[in-house]
């Protein structure tokens, strides 16, 4: 199945069909949708305090403003909307539920304390300023250590402490193996708090349909089906009475793969007021209240032998969950991701981890491109370099000695994840070659100083979890995560094709790549395949587009579905042509005899028979129509892999890191559209560069958010992303349909550790120890000055 030579469109660069309208400014994003009559605009009153009791809310001045319809508080929603939480079933998890609007207590800056309903967005904003809220500020905690301190204020009192989730794992005889190694290296790594910062902020609009007695929720989401289930559950609605649809979505990156309180609120209000209700967030709200990510503290101990081979790893991970669990991943996502992904491409057989998530008075954290993996690889890849430095072995060689080798696949890692295929060693070698690693090392002076700058090189050899199926979600406690995705494919009466997929595009190019896939399997032109997705009323149920699952699971189900339909096409054509169906192939828009292509029919001819548009009738027992539905639950996970190698120059004058050369080797198995894959690699790498060098949400010790704007939350610009030398290796999976693996996240996972290691290498001559990101110039400068014995200033 996976060594097929017969792909015609899969694997080819096809320019995107979605571009033509986007380039003309005709994309219909949430705020571009036509607005229904009687639309209510809402705005949220944000808490300025990280933790406080709400003493009173006086909305009289706001209500006096012409155009203000109502001001509602948390209590006004209590009968309408259940407190918010996903269903997580895993040992060590303690459930906390979140009111959709704060009741009596606020727990992070930006949490909504009231909702203003108005006739226009301008009036709603004016009214916000007039809502007088009286608070009694309470002591707050923002950081992980603060939260775990014995005298820390307890955020959710019923729990008794701030520990929301805790779990551990240990292989048999771990301590023995750990003690048996020649030496132990130890380090503590930290990642900053970041978020997706899609250029389109979030928004949603709920529209009642009084005739059908149902509601449509337009929302900027990557997971329309999960949103629908969550809303129906929390609002006590029938799922059949709710349609959740994503318009064009302006970037998602995982941040939009959550269910948010505002989505519940607009539907609840549309139900209550029988009017359409709309909310669009601004950038400040995005940075304050959208799901944040990372902020891991990773204590790692590596027991290693003199030859550089790792004997055992002990990992202690703490992660900051924020004030409440997110929906649907709760506070376990970043925690379990980091510890489960850490072994990566390396043969680590003795492993022990302890991991916890703690509550703090900060915005809830959850999924963001790479989830857990950039942090995990910062730790393990950082240790690879330290092993090399300690033992006098080249760090690339340390990796070679520990990596899973080509002949060892399929390989099951220490936590039970199967790596069916991979190119860990070839990828590493290729990356080193592309950047000229050996020559660079040979020329590199001990003090790393070349032409007035410290120059270093860093490697990250990563694995990338993709296409997670139901078992992969269950093992991490996600009781209601479907894991599968689905499609319905129809050959229409005119022989053209419509494919409905349970995915939701946010820029990945599904409308093109999914058309390529279906066309490939049905021997059609991709231009003749129309792709419909992101709408629960049109597609069968599924999980959605996140965690690098679109190509694996969405692509997989379309292939399966196409093949189901092809079987029927051959059956009907066989009846029409009187040729054995086994002899028939679908190619170039026709169904024909594989040895005698002249004997054949067009898809349209077959469709006309299927839809009773001629007088041929159907073979006995055959139903009308030409379609199929498919539900595809992929393997537990599918591992893609790759290597990033970065060469940097650190300027001792200003602490700036310049990326001088950058090489990426990327293996996502069977490639569907190389152009799209390269785009995913570029974009994810840029986000990894951002996370490594500049991006960070900053809270002060009292939980005040200090940079909810894009002047201070720094995104990479065109000046910050270097030219990337990109090579593909294609090692198809043997477990997934057509050998496809995911491609969307490896860029972040590879870039962050590669850059941290490169900077660490550059500064190693000075004795600077780099253990955290982001590596902003001020921080680097401080490290250099300290190392040189200069007084900072």
């Amino acid at each position, binding site marked *: 199945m996976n060594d097929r030579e017969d792909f015609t469109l899969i694997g080819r660069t096809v*320019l995107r069909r979605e571009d033509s309208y986007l*380039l003309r400014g005709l994309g219909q994003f949430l*705020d571009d949708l036509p607005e229904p009559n009687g639309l209510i605009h809402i705005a949220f009153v944000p808490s300025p305090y990280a933790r406080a009791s709400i003493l009173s809310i006086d909305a009289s001045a706001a209500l006096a*403003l012409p155009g203000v319809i109502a001001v509602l508080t948390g209590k006004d929603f209590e009968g309408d909307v259940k407190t918010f939480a996903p269903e997580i079933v895993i040992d060590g998890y303690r459930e906390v539920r979140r009111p959709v609007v704060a009741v009596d207590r606020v727990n992070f800056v930006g949490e909504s304390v009231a909702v203003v309903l108005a006739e226009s967005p301008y009036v709603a904003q004016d009214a916000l300023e007039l809502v007088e809220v009286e608070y009694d500020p309470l002591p707050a905690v923002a950081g992980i250590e603060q939260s775990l301190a014995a005298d820390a204020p307890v955020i959710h009192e019923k729990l008794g402490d701030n520990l929301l989730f805790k779990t551990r794992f240990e292989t048999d005889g771990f301590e023995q193996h750990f003690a048996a190694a020649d030496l132990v290296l130890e380090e503590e790594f930290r990642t900053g708090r970041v978020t997706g910062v899609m250029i389109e902020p979030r928004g949603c609009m709920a529209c009642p349909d009084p005739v059908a007695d149902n509601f449509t929720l337009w929302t900027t989401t990557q997971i329309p089906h999960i949103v629908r289930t969550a809303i129906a559950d929390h609002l006590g609605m029938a799922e059949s009475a709710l349609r959740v649809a994503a318009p064009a979505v302006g970037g998602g990156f995982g941040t939009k793969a959550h269910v948010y309180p505002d989505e519940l609120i607009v539907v609840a209000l549309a139900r209550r007021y029988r009017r359409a209700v709309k909310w669009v967030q*601004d*950038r400040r709200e995005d940075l304050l209240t959208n799901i944040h990510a990372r902020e891991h503290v990773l204590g790692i101990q590596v027991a290693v032998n003199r030859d550089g081979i790792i004997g055992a790893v002990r990992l202690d991970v703490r992660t900051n969950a924020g004030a409440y669990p997110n929906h649907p991943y709760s506070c376990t996502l970043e925690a379990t991701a980091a510890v489960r992904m850490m072994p990566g491409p390396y043969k680590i057989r003795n492993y022990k981890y302890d991991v916890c998530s703690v509550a703090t008075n900060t915005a809830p954290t959850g999924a963001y491109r790479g989830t857990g993996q950039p942090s995990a690889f910062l730790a393990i890849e950082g240790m690879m370099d330290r092993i090399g430095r300690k033992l006098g072995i080249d760090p690339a060689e340390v990796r070679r000695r520990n990596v899973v080798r080509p002949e060892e696949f399929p390989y099951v890692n220490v936590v039970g994840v199967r790596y069916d295929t991979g190119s860990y060693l070839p990828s590493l070698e290729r990356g080193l070659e592309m950047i000229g690693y050996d020559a660079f090392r040979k020329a590199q002076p001990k003090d790393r100083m070349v032409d007035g700058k410290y120059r270093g090189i860093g490697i990250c050899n990563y694995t990338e979890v993709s296409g997670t199926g139901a078992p992969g979600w269950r093992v991490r406690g996600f009781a209601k995560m479907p894991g599968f995705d689905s499609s319905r494919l129809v050959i229409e009466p005119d022989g053209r094709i419509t494919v409905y997929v349970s995915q939701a595009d946010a820029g990945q190019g599904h409308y093109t790549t999914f058309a390529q896939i279906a066309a490939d399997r049905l021997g059609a032109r991709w231009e003749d395949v129309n792709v419909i997705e992101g709408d629960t009323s049109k597609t069968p149920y599924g999980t959605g587009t996140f965690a690098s699952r679109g190509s694996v699971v969405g692509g997989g189900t379309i292939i399966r579905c196409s093949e189901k339909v092809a079987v029927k096409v051959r059956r009907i054509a066989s009846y029409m042509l009187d040729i054995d169906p086994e002899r028939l192939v679908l190619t170039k828009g026709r169904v024909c005899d594989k040895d005698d292509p002249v004997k054949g029919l067009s898809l349209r001819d077959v469709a006309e028979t299927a839809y009773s548009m001629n007088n041929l009738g159907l073979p006995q027992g055959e139903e009308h129509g030409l379609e199929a539905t498919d539900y595809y639950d992929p393997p537990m996970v599918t591992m893609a892999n790759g290597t990033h190698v970065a060469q940097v120059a650190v300027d001792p004058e200003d602490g700036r890191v310049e990326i001088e050369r950058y090489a990426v080797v990327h293996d996502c198995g069977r490639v569907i559209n190389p152009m799209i894959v390269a785009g995913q690699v*570029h974009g994810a790498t840029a986000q990894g560069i951002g996370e490594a060098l500049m991006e960070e949400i900053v809270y002060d010790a009292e939980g005040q958010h200090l940079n909810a704007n894009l002047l201070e939350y720094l*995104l990479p610009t*065109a000046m910050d992303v270097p030219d990337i030398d990109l090579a593909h290796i294609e090692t198809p999976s043997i477990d997934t349909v057509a050998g496809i693996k995911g491609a969307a996240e490896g860029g972040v996972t590879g870039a962050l550790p590669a850059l941290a290691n490169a900077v660490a290498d550059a500064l190693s001559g000075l004795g600077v120890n780099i253990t955290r990101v982001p590596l902003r110039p001020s921080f680097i400068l401080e490290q250099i000055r300290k190392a040189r014995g200069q007084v900072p200033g």
Partner: protein
Amino acid sequence: MTAGKVTVRLTVNGKAYSREVEPRYLLADFLRHELHLTGTHIGCEHGVCGACTVLIDGKTARSCLQFAVALDGAEVTTVEGIAGDGPLHPIQEAFHEAHALQCGYCTPGFLLTTVEFLRRNPTPTRAEIREALTNNMCRCTGYLNIIEAVENAARRLSGAGEVATERTR
């Protein structure tokens, strides 16, 4: 709180419009809500991301930082005006061919920045392109394909000029 409405006359994409708006109405809102030209996107509302970039009298400007009333009489070009109803502009074509857009939300801003930039500097170096694009943020593409698209567009635009010259000969 809101003063009375004021008449604003603007030429947008070659068409004259007159509307009564509140003085605090931003140009971005004016374009989007009054003229229903929703291709101008709002990304940050504080002038950093560049998604709302338009041309005002031929020069790039952030429509989220401009009051519509302050621009009475100005000529504005939005993304909808780059190609009008005709075939894609060479810059748009170059973006398409280089895969210089993914979600497409920031794209209108990039296109208008490029229109102005290539008018000013028809044969830019890669470094100059990078610099010109720093005023616009893209979260999807990592910029490299955008840079390539601008390079290609520059070549194509100057090439198109040559073809035209030949034809006139």
